[in-house]
Protein backbone atom coordinates (compact mmCIF):
# COMPACT_ATOMS: atom_id res chain seq x y z
CA UNK A 1 0.00 0.00 0.00
CA UNK A 2 1.31 3.44 -0.84
CA UNK A 3 -1.22 6.24 -0.52
CA UNK A 4 -4.30 6.16 1.74
CA UNK A 5 -8.04 6.59 1.26
CA UNK A 6 -9.98 9.28 3.13
CA UNK A 7 -11.08 6.76 5.72
CA UNK A 8 -7.55 5.51 6.24
CA UNK A 9 -6.22 9.08 6.35
CA UNK A 10 -8.77 10.22 8.93
CA UNK A 11 -8.68 7.24 11.23
CA UNK A 12 -6.95 7.36 14.57
CA UNK A 13 -3.22 6.67 14.15
CA UNK A 14 -2.35 3.17 15.27
CA UNK A 15 -0.07 4.47 18.01
CA UNK A 16 -0.07 4.78 21.79
CA UNK A 17 -2.34 7.65 22.83
CA UNK A 18 0.52 9.99 23.82
CA UNK A 19 2.30 9.48 20.48
CA UNK A 20 0.02 11.76 18.47
CA UNK A 21 -2.13 14.86 18.91
CA UNK A 22 -5.37 15.91 17.29
CA UNK A 23 -5.24 19.02 15.08
CA UNK A 24 -8.28 20.22 17.05
CA UNK A 25 -5.93 21.37 19.82
CA UNK A 26 -4.56 23.93 17.38
CA UNK A 27 -7.68 24.98 15.52
CA UNK A 28 -10.71 25.05 17.80
CA UNK A 29 -11.90 28.31 19.31
CA UNK A 30 -13.38 26.70 22.44
CA UNK A 31 -10.09 24.99 23.21
CA UNK A 32 -8.23 28.25 22.69
CA UNK A 33 -10.64 30.08 25.01
CA UNK A 34 -10.08 27.40 27.63
CA UNK A 35 -6.33 27.73 27.25
CA UNK A 36 -6.65 31.40 28.17
CA UNK A 37 -8.51 30.64 31.40
CA UNK A 38 -6.99 27.30 32.39
CA UNK A 39 -3.41 27.78 31.24
CA UNK A 40 -2.44 31.37 30.64
CA UNK A 41 -4.42 32.86 33.51
CA UNK A 42 -2.75 30.34 35.87
CA UNK A 43 0.80 29.79 34.66
CA UNK A 44 3.96 31.75 35.21
CA UNK A 45 4.88 33.63 32.08
CA UNK A 46 8.06 35.41 30.93
CA UNK A 47 7.12 39.01 30.04
CA UNK A 48 10.32 41.04 29.75
CA UNK A 49 13.96 41.30 30.79
CA UNK A 50 14.88 43.60 33.67
CA UNK A 51 17.30 45.53 31.43
CA UNK A 52 14.25 46.89 29.63
CA UNK A 53 13.48 48.95 32.74
CA UNK A 54 16.90 49.56 34.31
CA UNK A 55 16.22 52.73 36.33
CA UNK A 56 13.90 53.63 39.16
CA UNK A 57 10.64 54.87 37.68
CA UNK A 58 11.09 52.99 34.39
CA UNK A 59 8.01 51.23 33.08
CA UNK A 60 7.16 48.88 30.23
CA UNK A 61 3.87 47.57 28.97
CA UNK A 62 3.12 43.95 28.16
CA UNK A 63 0.16 41.76 27.34
CA UNK A 64 -0.72 38.36 28.73
CA UNK A 65 -3.87 36.24 28.50
CA UNK A 66 -5.50 39.15 26.70
CA UNK A 67 -4.78 41.54 29.56
CA UNK A 68 -2.75 44.73 29.22
CA UNK A 69 -0.10 44.93 31.93
CA UNK A 70 2.39 47.44 33.31
CA UNK A 71 5.84 46.52 34.56
CA UNK A 72 7.08 49.28 36.80
CA UNK A 73 10.34 49.69 38.69
CA UNK A 74 9.52 51.55 41.88
CA UNK A 75 11.64 54.05 43.79
CA UNK A 76 12.66 51.08 45.98
CA UNK A 77 14.22 49.52 42.82
CA UNK A 78 11.75 46.61 42.86
CA UNK A 79 10.03 45.62 39.61
CA UNK A 80 6.31 45.05 40.07
CA UNK A 81 3.51 44.22 37.71
CA UNK A 82 0.00 45.67 37.61
CA UNK A 83 -3.02 45.46 35.36
CA UNK A 84 -2.76 48.37 32.96
CA UNK A 85 -6.20 49.55 34.03
CA UNK A 86 -7.05 52.58 36.08
CA UNK A 87 -8.85 52.13 39.39
CA UNK A 88 -11.20 54.96 38.44
CA UNK A 89 -13.00 54.17 35.20
CA UNK A 90 -10.68 51.58 33.73
CA UNK A 91 -8.65 53.52 31.18
CA UNK A 92 -5.23 52.24 30.29
CA UNK A 93 -2.92 53.97 32.74
CA UNK A 94 0.10 53.69 30.46
CA UNK A 95 -0.28 54.13 26.72
CA UNK A 96 3.39 54.02 25.67
CA UNK A 97 5.53 50.85 25.46
CA UNK A 98 8.13 52.34 27.78
CA UNK A 99 8.91 55.44 29.79
CA UNK A 100 9.98 56.81 33.15
CA UNK A 101 7.85 58.49 35.77
CA UNK A 102 7.93 58.88 39.54
CA UNK A 103 4.15 58.40 39.48
CA UNK A 104 1.97 56.93 36.77
CA UNK A 105 -0.74 59.44 36.01
CA UNK A 106 -3.77 58.25 34.12
CA UNK A 107 -4.32 60.60 31.19
CA UNK A 108 -8.11 60.48 31.41
CA UNK A 109 -8.86 62.20 34.76
CA UNK A 110 -5.33 62.36 36.15
CA UNK A 111 -5.45 59.92 39.05
CA UNK A 112 -1.89 58.88 39.97
CA UNK A 113 -0.22 55.73 41.27
CA UNK A 114 3.22 55.06 42.69
CA UNK A 115 5.69 52.23 42.14
CA UNK A 116 3.94 50.06 44.70
CA UNK A 117 0.62 50.51 42.94
CA UNK A 118 -0.78 52.79 45.64
CA UNK A 119 -3.08 55.57 44.53
CA UNK A 120 -1.34 58.85 45.27
CA UNK A 121 -3.76 61.31 43.72
CA UNK A 122 -7.47 61.51 43.17
CA UNK A 123 -8.32 64.65 41.27
CA UNK A 124 -10.43 67.00 43.39
CA UNK A 125 -11.07 64.28 45.99
CA UNK A 126 -13.75 66.22 47.87
CA UNK A 127 -16.12 65.19 45.09
CA UNK A 128 -16.09 61.76 46.72
CA UNK A 129 -16.65 62.92 50.28
CA UNK A 130 -20.03 61.22 50.27
CA UNK A 131 -18.46 57.86 49.31
CA UNK A 132 -16.13 56.54 51.99
CA UNK A 133 -14.70 53.80 49.76
CA UNK A 134 -13.36 56.13 47.08
CA UNK A 135 -10.23 57.19 48.90
CA UNK A 136 -6.59 56.96 47.90
CA UNK A 137 -5.89 54.14 50.34
CA UNK A 138 -8.61 51.96 48.74
CA UNK A 139 -7.98 52.82 45.12
CA UNK A 140 -4.64 51.10 44.45
CA UNK A 141 -3.87 49.29 41.20
CA UNK A 142 -4.40 45.53 40.84
CA UNK A 143 -0.97 44.00 41.50
CA UNK A 144 0.09 40.88 39.64
CA UNK A 145 2.55 38.39 41.16
CA UNK A 146 5.97 39.04 39.68
CA UNK A 147 9.47 37.63 40.17
CA UNK A 148 12.83 38.36 38.55
CA UNK A 149 15.09 35.36 37.95
CA UNK A 150 18.39 35.60 36.05
CA UNK A 151 17.21 39.00 34.85
CA UNK A 152 14.04 37.56 33.38
CA UNK A 153 10.72 38.93 34.65
CA UNK A 154 8.00 36.33 35.14
CA UNK A 155 4.43 37.03 36.18
CA UNK A 156 1.30 35.06 36.96
CA UNK A 157 -2.26 36.38 36.99
CA UNK A 158 -3.19 33.75 39.57
CA UNK A 159 -2.70 35.05 43.12
CA UNK A 160 -2.84 31.42 44.31
CA UNK A 161 -0.25 30.10 41.83
CA UNK A 162 2.52 27.95 43.23
CA UNK A 163 5.73 29.80 43.94
CA UNK A 164 7.82 30.40 40.84
CA UNK A 165 10.85 28.51 42.12
CA UNK A 166 8.71 25.44 42.80
CA UNK A 167 7.08 25.82 39.40
CA UNK A 168 10.37 25.82 37.45
CA UNK A 169 12.34 23.53 39.78
CA UNK A 170 15.86 23.09 38.44
CA UNK A 171 14.87 24.04 34.88
CA UNK A 172 16.89 27.26 34.91
CA UNK A 173 20.10 25.59 36.13
CA UNK A 174 21.55 25.52 32.61
CA UNK A 175 21.20 29.30 32.49
CA UNK A 176 22.38 30.08 36.01
CA UNK A 177 26.00 30.88 35.19
CA UNK A 178 25.35 32.15 31.66
CA UNK A 179 22.71 34.72 32.59
CA UNK A 180 23.28 35.14 36.29
CA UNK A 181 26.98 36.07 36.52
CA UNK A 182 27.04 39.44 34.78
CA UNK A 183 24.11 41.76 34.08
CA UNK A 184 22.71 41.19 30.61
CA UNK A 185 20.96 43.61 28.27
CA UNK A 186 18.34 43.15 25.59
CA UNK A 187 19.59 44.64 22.31
CA UNK A 188 16.99 43.17 20.00
CA UNK A 189 13.22 42.82 20.14
CA UNK A 190 11.03 42.09 17.19
CA UNK A 191 7.62 40.55 16.66
CA UNK A 192 6.33 38.22 14.02
CA UNK A 193 2.72 37.70 12.99
CA UNK A 194 2.12 34.01 12.55
CA UNK A 195 -0.93 32.43 10.99
CA UNK A 196 -0.53 29.48 13.28
CA UNK A 197 -1.34 28.26 16.75
CA UNK A 198 0.94 29.31 19.59
CA UNK A 199 1.77 25.68 20.46
CA UNK A 200 3.00 25.08 16.93
CA UNK A 201 5.67 27.70 17.54
CA UNK A 202 6.63 26.17 20.86
CA UNK A 203 6.99 22.81 19.14
CA UNK A 204 9.76 24.25 16.95
CA UNK A 205 11.74 24.88 20.10
CA UNK A 206 11.32 21.30 21.34
CA UNK A 207 11.24 18.87 18.43
CA UNK A 208 14.68 19.15 16.93
CA UNK A 209 14.38 16.87 13.92
CA UNK A 210 13.03 19.84 11.96
CA UNK A 211 16.64 21.05 12.14
CA UNK A 212 17.10 18.93 9.03
CA UNK A 213 14.93 21.53 7.29
CA UNK A 214 17.17 24.47 8.22
CA UNK A 215 20.33 24.57 6.15
CA UNK A 216 22.18 26.39 8.95
CA UNK A 217 21.17 23.90 11.62
CA UNK A 218 21.75 20.95 9.32
CA UNK A 219 25.32 22.01 8.58
CA UNK A 220 26.42 23.54 11.86
CA UNK A 221 24.57 21.41 14.41
CA UNK A 222 23.08 18.14 13.18
CA UNK A 223 26.42 17.42 11.52
CA UNK A 224 28.39 18.33 14.67
CA UNK A 225 29.78 15.50 16.74
CA UNK A 226 27.75 14.69 19.83
CA UNK A 227 24.54 16.17 18.42
CA UNK A 228 22.45 13.02 18.85
CA UNK A 229 24.09 11.96 22.10
CA UNK A 230 22.81 14.94 24.11
CA UNK A 231 20.02 13.98 26.47
CA UNK A 232 16.84 15.83 27.27
CA UNK A 233 15.95 16.48 30.89
CA UNK A 234 12.25 16.82 31.44
CA UNK A 235 10.64 18.45 34.43
CA UNK A 236 7.23 17.19 35.65
CA UNK A 237 5.74 20.63 34.93
CA UNK A 238 6.50 20.28 31.22
CA UNK A 239 9.74 22.26 31.10
CA UNK A 240 12.73 20.72 29.37
CA UNK A 241 16.35 21.35 28.57
CA UNK A 242 19.01 19.67 26.55
CA UNK A 243 22.60 18.93 27.39
CA UNK A 244 25.02 21.37 25.73
CA UNK A 245 26.46 20.99 22.24
CA UNK A 246 29.50 22.49 20.55
CA UNK A 247 28.20 23.92 17.28
CA UNK A 248 30.42 24.00 14.15
CA UNK A 249 29.57 27.52 12.98
CA UNK A 250 32.39 27.40 10.43
CA UNK A 251 30.48 24.69 8.53
CA UNK A 252 28.14 27.31 7.14
CA UNK A 253 29.68 29.03 4.14
CA UNK A 254 31.18 32.37 5.14
CA UNK A 255 30.79 32.06 8.91
CA UNK A 256 33.58 31.97 11.43
CA UNK A 257 33.86 30.17 14.74
CA UNK A 258 32.52 31.52 18.02
CA UNK A 259 35.49 31.09 20.29
CA UNK A 260 35.67 34.59 21.74
CA UNK A 261 33.35 36.81 23.73
CA UNK A 262 31.82 33.75 25.33
CA UNK A 263 29.12 34.32 27.91
CA UNK A 264 30.02 33.17 31.43
CA UNK A 265 30.34 29.43 31.95
CA UNK A 266 30.33 28.46 28.28
CA UNK A 267 32.74 26.48 26.14
CA UNK A 268 33.47 27.92 22.67
CA UNK A 269 30.40 27.77 20.41
CA UNK A 270 28.38 26.11 23.13
CA UNK A 271 24.65 25.74 22.49
CA UNK A 272 22.02 25.37 25.19
CA UNK A 273 18.24 25.36 25.07
CA UNK A 274 15.73 25.62 27.91
CA UNK A 275 12.00 25.33 27.26
CA UNK A 276 9.65 26.66 29.91
CA UNK A 277 6.07 25.46 29.78
CA UNK A 278 3.91 26.67 28.18
CA UNK A 279 5.42 29.18 25.74
CA UNK A 280 8.87 30.51 26.56
CA UNK A 281 12.25 29.32 25.34
CA UNK A 282 15.76 30.53 26.10
CA UNK A 283 18.44 29.62 23.58
CA UNK A 284 22.14 30.23 24.17
CA UNK A 285 24.61 30.34 21.28
CA UNK A 286 28.01 30.95 22.84
CA UNK A 287 28.09 34.71 22.66
CA UNK A 288 24.43 35.65 22.65
CA UNK A 289 21.06 34.62 24.04
CA UNK A 290 17.61 34.55 22.48
CA UNK A 291 14.40 34.57 24.49
CA UNK A 292 11.23 33.57 22.68
CA UNK A 293 7.74 33.98 23.91
CA UNK A 294 4.39 34.08 22.19
CA UNK A 295 1.26 36.17 22.56
CA UNK A 296 -1.66 33.98 21.46
CA UNK A 297 -4.39 36.08 19.84
CA UNK A 298 -6.71 33.44 18.36
CA UNK A 299 -6.39 29.71 17.49
CA UNK A 300 -4.62 30.60 14.25
CA UNK A 301 -3.12 33.98 15.12
CA UNK A 302 0.00 34.22 17.24
CA UNK A 303 2.48 37.00 17.83
CA UNK A 304 5.98 35.74 18.40
CA UNK A 305 8.15 38.06 20.47
CA UNK A 306 11.86 37.45 20.11
CA UNK A 307 14.57 39.11 22.15
CA UNK A 308 18.34 39.07 21.71
CA UNK A 309 20.72 39.68 24.60
CA UNK A 310 24.34 40.52 25.25
CA UNK A 311 26.23 41.70 28.32
CA UNK A 312 25.44 45.09 29.74
CA UNK A 313 29.17 45.81 30.06
CA UNK A 314 29.82 45.21 26.33
CA UNK A 315 32.07 47.70 24.57
CA UNK A 316 30.63 49.01 21.30
CA UNK A 317 32.88 46.61 19.39
CA UNK A 318 31.87 43.59 21.48
CA UNK A 319 28.21 44.47 21.16
CA UNK A 320 28.62 44.70 17.41
CA UNK A 321 30.08 41.19 17.32
CA UNK A 322 27.32 39.78 19.51
CA UNK A 323 24.70 41.44 17.32
CA UNK A 324 26.32 39.91 14.25
CA UNK A 325 26.23 36.49 15.87
CA UNK A 326 22.63 37.02 16.90
CA UNK A 327 21.62 38.16 13.45
CA UNK A 328 23.27 35.24 11.67
CA UNK A 329 20.65 32.85 13.01
CA UNK A 330 17.96 35.06 14.44
CA UNK A 331 16.11 38.30 13.90
CA UNK A 332 13.84 38.94 10.91
CA UNK A 333 16.77 38.87 8.50
CA UNK A 334 18.52 35.87 10.06
CA UNK A 335 19.05 32.53 8.40
CA UNK A 336 17.01 30.40 10.77
CA UNK A 337 14.10 32.15 12.42
CA UNK A 338 12.05 33.10 9.39
CA UNK A 339 12.25 29.51 8.15
CA UNK A 340 10.56 28.33 11.33
CA UNK A 341 7.74 30.78 10.71
CA UNK A 342 7.31 29.36 7.22
CA UNK A 343 7.32 25.78 8.54
CA UNK A 344 4.76 26.55 11.20
CA UNK A 345 2.47 28.48 8.88
CA UNK A 346 2.57 25.55 6.45
CA UNK A 347 1.50 23.07 9.13
CA UNK A 348 -1.25 25.42 10.29
CA UNK A 349 -2.55 25.74 6.73
CA UNK A 350 -3.22 22.01 6.57
CA UNK A 351 -4.54 21.83 10.14
CA UNK A 352 -6.93 24.76 9.85
CA UNK A 353 -8.41 23.48 6.62
CA UNK A 354 -9.07 20.19 8.44
CA UNK A 355 -6.84 18.50 5.86
CA UNK A 356 -4.26 17.15 8.30
CA UNK A 357 -6.03 15.78 11.35
CA UNK A 358 -3.13 14.41 13.35
CA UNK A 359 0.38 15.28 14.40
CA UNK A 360 2.72 12.41 15.18
CA UNK A 361 5.21 12.55 18.05
CA UNK A 362 6.46 8.98 18.01
CA UNK A 363 10.26 9.21 17.89
CA UNK A 364 12.22 7.29 20.49
CA UNK A 365 15.94 8.02 20.58
CA UNK A 366 16.83 7.13 24.14
CA UNK A 367 16.05 10.73 25.24
CA UNK A 368 18.53 12.03 22.67
CA UNK A 369 18.24 15.41 20.96
CA UNK A 370 15.60 14.30 18.45
CA UNK A 371 13.55 12.16 20.83
CA UNK A 372 9.85 13.12 20.97
CA UNK A 373 9.66 12.45 24.70
CA UNK A 374 9.85 16.20 25.34
CA UNK A 375 6.79 16.67 23.10
CA UNK A 376 4.92 13.82 24.77
CA UNK A 377 5.68 15.29 28.20
CA UNK A 378 4.62 18.75 27.04
CA UNK A 379 1.25 17.54 25.81
CA UNK A 380 0.73 15.39 28.86
CA UNK A 381 1.14 18.48 31.06
CA UNK A 382 -1.06 20.47 28.67
CA UNK A 383 -3.69 17.75 29.08
CA UNK A 384 -3.58 17.96 32.88
CA UNK A 385 -4.13 21.72 32.93
CA UNK A 386 -6.79 21.51 30.26
CA UNK A 387 -8.50 18.35 31.56
CA UNK A 388 -8.47 17.12 27.98
CA UNK A 389 -6.31 14.64 26.11
CA UNK A 390 -4.25 16.21 23.35
CA UNK A 391 -4.90 13.25 21.06
CA UNK A 392 -8.65 13.30 21.74
CA UNK A 393 -9.66 16.67 23.20
CA UNK A 394 -13.40 16.09 22.79
CA UNK A 395 -13.37 12.53 24.09
CA UNK A 396 -14.62 11.12 20.81
CA UNK A 397 -12.59 7.95 20.86
CA UNK A 398 -14.02 4.90 22.50
CA UNK A 399 -12.08 3.51 25.40
CA UNK A 400 -11.08 0.56 23.23
CA UNK A 401 -9.56 2.65 20.46
CA UNK A 402 -8.15 5.33 22.76
Amino acid sequence: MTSRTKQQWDERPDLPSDHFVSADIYTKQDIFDEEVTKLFAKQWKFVAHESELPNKGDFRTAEHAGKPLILYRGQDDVVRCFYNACSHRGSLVVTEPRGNAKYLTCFFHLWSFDGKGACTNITKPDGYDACATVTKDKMGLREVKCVVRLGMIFITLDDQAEEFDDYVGDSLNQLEEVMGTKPMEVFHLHRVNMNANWKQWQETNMELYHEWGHVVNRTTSVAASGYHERKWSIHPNGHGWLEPLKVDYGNYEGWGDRDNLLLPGLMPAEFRVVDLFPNTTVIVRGTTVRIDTTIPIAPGVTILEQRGLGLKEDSAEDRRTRQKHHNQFWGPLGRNLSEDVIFVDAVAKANFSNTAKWGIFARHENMGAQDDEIMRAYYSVWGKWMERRANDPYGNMTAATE
Partner: protein
Amino acid sequence: MSMDKEDIRQLIAQSCLCLDEEDYDGFLQICSSDFTYFVKAFSPDLGMEMVWMDHDHPEFVDMCAMIPKHVRMSGSISRHVNVSLITEISDRNAKVTSKILLVHTGQEGTSTILATGKYVDQITVESNELRIKARNVSLETRKWNPGLHVPI
Protein backbone atom coordinates in the same frame (compact mmCIF):
# COMPACT_ATOMS: atom_id res chain seq x y z
CA MET B 1 34.50 62.67 -12.92
CA SER B 2 31.82 64.78 -11.28
CA MET B 3 28.64 63.60 -9.68
CA ASP B 4 25.61 63.93 -11.92
CA LYS B 5 22.32 63.78 -10.06
CA GLU B 6 20.56 61.97 -12.87
CA ASP B 7 23.31 59.35 -13.01
CA ILE B 8 22.95 58.86 -9.26
CA ARG B 9 19.19 58.36 -9.59
CA GLN B 10 19.83 55.80 -12.31
CA LEU B 11 22.30 53.99 -10.08
CA ILE B 12 19.85 53.74 -7.18
CA ALA B 13 17.08 52.59 -9.51
CA GLN B 14 19.37 50.00 -11.04
CA SER B 15 20.36 48.70 -7.61
CA CYS B 16 16.70 48.13 -6.78
CA LEU B 17 15.95 46.42 -10.06
CA CYS B 18 18.89 44.07 -9.48
CA LEU B 19 17.65 43.24 -5.98
CA ASP B 20 14.09 42.73 -7.25
CA GLU B 21 15.47 40.26 -9.80
CA GLU B 22 17.69 38.65 -7.15
CA ASP B 23 20.58 39.44 -9.47
CA TYR B 24 23.21 39.79 -6.75
CA ASP B 25 26.14 39.68 -9.18
CA GLY B 26 24.56 42.60 -11.02
CA PHE B 27 24.01 44.42 -7.74
CA LEU B 28 27.59 43.88 -6.62
CA GLN B 29 28.88 45.15 -9.96
CA ILE B 30 27.47 48.58 -9.15
CA CYS B 31 28.89 48.50 -5.62
CA SER B 32 32.44 49.47 -4.70
CA SER B 33 34.97 46.84 -3.65
CA ASP B 34 34.73 48.06 -0.05
CA PHE B 35 30.92 48.03 -0.03
CA THR B 36 29.20 47.78 3.36
CA TYR B 37 25.59 46.91 4.06
CA PHE B 38 23.72 47.79 7.22
CA VAL B 39 20.10 47.46 8.36
CA LYS B 40 18.76 49.09 11.49
CA ALA B 41 15.40 49.70 13.10
CA PHE B 42 14.46 51.76 16.12
CA SER B 43 12.71 49.84 18.89
CA PRO B 44 10.14 51.87 20.86
CA ASP B 45 10.08 48.96 23.34
CA LEU B 46 13.79 49.19 24.07
CA GLY B 47 14.22 52.88 23.36
CA MET B 48 17.27 52.07 21.25
CA GLU B 49 18.35 51.40 17.72
CA MET B 50 18.53 47.73 16.78
CA VAL B 51 21.05 46.43 14.25
CA TRP B 52 19.51 43.78 12.03
CA MET B 53 22.30 43.33 9.53
CA ASP B 54 25.88 44.53 9.41
CA HIS B 55 28.00 43.16 6.56
CA ASP B 56 31.22 44.08 4.84
CA HIS B 57 31.72 43.18 1.17
CA PRO B 58 32.85 39.55 1.67
CA GLU B 59 30.12 38.89 4.23
CA PHE B 60 27.52 40.33 1.90
CA VAL B 61 28.77 38.17 -0.97
CA ASP B 62 28.64 35.04 1.23
CA MET B 63 25.16 35.87 2.43
CA CYS B 64 23.84 36.28 -1.11
CA ALA B 65 25.50 33.07 -2.23
CA MET B 66 23.63 31.05 0.40
CA ILE B 67 20.17 32.47 -0.32
CA PRO B 68 19.13 29.73 -2.77
CA LYS B 69 19.77 27.06 -0.14
CA HIS B 70 17.22 28.49 2.28
CA VAL B 71 13.53 27.92 2.84
CA ARG B 72 11.96 31.19 1.84
CA MET B 73 8.72 33.04 1.51
CA SER B 74 7.44 32.39 -2.00
CA GLY B 75 6.51 35.16 -4.43
CA SER B 76 8.42 38.28 -5.39
CA ILE B 77 9.46 41.53 -3.79
CA SER B 78 9.34 44.86 -5.55
CA ARG B 79 11.28 47.86 -4.22
CA HIS B 80 9.58 51.19 -4.84
CA VAL B 81 12.10 53.91 -4.35
CA ASN B 82 11.83 57.63 -4.25
CA VAL B 83 15.22 59.34 -4.29
CA SER B 84 14.41 62.27 -2.10
CA LEU B 85 17.69 63.95 -1.30
CA ILE B 86 21.12 64.00 -2.93
CA THR B 87 23.83 65.77 -1.02
CA GLU B 88 27.00 66.23 -3.02
CA ILE B 89 29.91 66.01 -0.69
CA SER B 90 32.74 66.23 -3.23
CA ASP B 91 33.27 65.30 -6.88
CA ARG B 92 33.89 61.72 -5.84
CA ASN B 93 31.43 61.23 -2.99
CA ALA B 94 27.74 61.81 -2.48
CA LYS B 95 25.15 60.92 0.07
CA VAL B 96 21.73 59.88 -1.19
CA THR B 97 18.62 59.46 0.93
CA SER B 98 15.71 57.56 -0.60
CA LYS B 99 12.34 56.56 0.78
CA ILE B 100 11.58 52.91 0.11
CA LEU B 101 8.53 50.70 0.05
CA LEU B 102 8.88 46.94 -0.33
CA VAL B 103 5.83 45.30 -1.84
CA HIS B 104 5.47 41.54 -1.75
CA THR B 105 3.40 39.75 -4.36
CA GLY B 106 2.47 36.20 -3.49
CA GLN B 107 2.28 33.37 -5.98
CA GLU B 108 -1.49 33.68 -6.02
CA GLY B 109 -1.19 37.37 -6.95
CA THR B 110 -1.94 39.28 -3.78
CA SER B 111 0.31 42.27 -3.16
CA THR B 112 0.96 43.55 0.33
CA ILE B 113 3.29 46.13 1.77
CA LEU B 114 6.15 44.29 3.41
CA ALA B 115 8.24 47.15 4.73
CA THR B 116 8.78 50.85 4.65
CA GLY B 117 11.85 52.85 5.51
CA LYS B 118 14.73 54.54 3.78
CA TYR B 119 18.08 53.92 2.16
CA VAL B 120 20.96 56.20 2.98
CA ASP B 121 23.54 55.40 0.31
CA GLN B 122 27.12 56.61 0.06
CA ILE B 123 28.07 56.95 -3.59
CA THR B 124 31.63 56.98 -4.81
CA VAL B 125 33.63 56.74 -8.04
CA GLU B 126 35.60 53.61 -8.79
CA SER B 127 37.21 52.80 -12.16
CA ASN B 128 35.61 56.00 -13.41
CA GLU B 129 32.11 54.67 -12.69
CA LEU B 130 29.60 55.56 -10.02
CA ARG B 131 29.44 52.91 -7.32
CA ILE B 132 27.48 52.37 -4.12
CA LYS B 133 30.02 52.37 -1.33
CA ALA B 134 27.63 51.88 1.57
CA ARG B 135 23.95 51.16 1.91
CA ASN B 136 22.38 51.91 5.27
CA VAL B 137 18.78 50.78 5.50
CA SER B 138 16.59 52.32 8.21
CA LEU B 139 13.39 50.39 8.65
CA GLU B 140 10.21 51.72 10.12
CA THR B 141 8.56 48.31 9.76
CA ARG B 142 9.44 45.98 12.60
CA LYS B 143 6.70 43.38 12.60
CA TRP B 144 7.14 40.69 10.02
CA ASN B 145 5.74 37.57 8.60
CA PRO B 146 7.87 35.65 8.26
CA GLY B 147 11.13 37.54 7.71
CA LEU B 148 13.53 37.79 4.82
CA HIS B 149 16.60 36.05 3.56
CA VAL B 150 17.31 38.69 0.94
CA PRO B 151 18.78 42.18 1.25
CA ILE B 152 16.11 44.83 1.67
